[in-house]
């Protein structure tokens, strides 16, 4: 390997999606380790049976792309260079948002739009479709200036229109 190329380490975003089978994580991370990648934050889950993983790591862009090439085919793999980190302090207190009801288009957009309209931000979100039941659970931060009661009312009205139930409650954390 070309030492000069190794020197150009940058923060990379790697995504891997494809049909699930045992060993995908082992295969991907083994290849990354071989080209000197340091894994930072990552998340992996199954979405309706599809393997889905996102990794933010630091490593050399071109060698990472080349090393992952043999795994492409069954897996859809992307590698991108990221800009500088954009971590920021929380914009407000954490809340947990739960929405569930009959599945229909537009639930996620309508509910998250309400959060955004008061300057709130979603920090984590999952949705599941289970038969006819659609379930959304999100962790959100609400800025202190937001009118919480107004937001609750607006969420309830939106939920009524969509025919779903919504709950927004403070996220509890126990510091030990």
């Amino acid at each position, binding site marked *: 390997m070309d030492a000069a190329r190794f020197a150009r380490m940058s923060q990379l975003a790697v995504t891997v999606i494809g049909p699930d089978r045992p060993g995908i994580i082992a295969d991907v991370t083994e290849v990354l380790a071989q080209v000197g990648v340091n894994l930072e934050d990552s998340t992996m889950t199954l979405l309706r049976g599809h393997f889905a993983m996102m990794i933010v790591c630091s490593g050399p862009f071109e060698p990472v792309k080349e090393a992952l090439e043999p795994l492409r085919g069954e897996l859809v793999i992307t590698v991108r260079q990221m800009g500088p980190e954009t971590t920021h302090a929380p914009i407000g207190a954490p809340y947990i948002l*739960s929405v*569930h009801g009959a*599945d229909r288009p537009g639930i996620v957009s309508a509910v998250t739009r309400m959060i955004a309209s008061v300057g709130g931000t979603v920090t*984590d979100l999952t949705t*599941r479709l*289970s038969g006819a*039941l659609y379930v959304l*659970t999100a*962790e959100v931060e609400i800025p202190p200036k937001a009118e919480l009661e107004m937001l609750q009312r607006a969420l309830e009205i939106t939920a009524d229109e969509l025919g779903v*139930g919504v709950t927004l409650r403070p996220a509890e954390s126990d510091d030990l």
Partner: protein
Amino acid sequence: MSLGHLNQTLATWSPAQLDLVGDVLEVIRAPHPVLATEGATVDPLDPVMIALAADLVATMRVSPGCVGLAAPQVGVAAQMFALDVTGHPKTRTCHGVFVLCNAVVLEASRQEKAREGCMSVPDLTGDVKRATRLTVTGTLPGTTDEITLSTDAFEARAIQHELDHCAGKLFLDRVAGAHAIYPRQVYL
């Protein structure tokens, strides 16, 4: 408060006291509006409600693994539930089988997180924080006396789960975070 001390009226209660054989009813699944409807308070002496109590016990009995069933789960938006956590490995204090009407929490403390499921949400489970020490009041069907019950561990969790149903809520409204809902795992 003497925790773990059984309420004898409740512990010795039996569905035979209803003097009725309950029907096995269909268990309603989410999303159904009745599961999101706040239950009405009930008249424990109303023959219709006594029959419902018998039906809840009968339906709970034939459902494998079912430790509690609330009226909204059989399509009736009413504040009544049947419970029986007998033999469950997480049970400590145990009042056996009972049905409570119009139950209200008086005291709840010592929150702990655990994974729960629900017959009305059969394909998902979720991590929910609930009190492990609980005191509630309520009325047995066919009676007028309000009784007070103190319990702990799994019986406390199950009662709170059923009280949520009576208020039109599901465990999905209380899950601990964005990654706290899981597809139910079934090994073949």
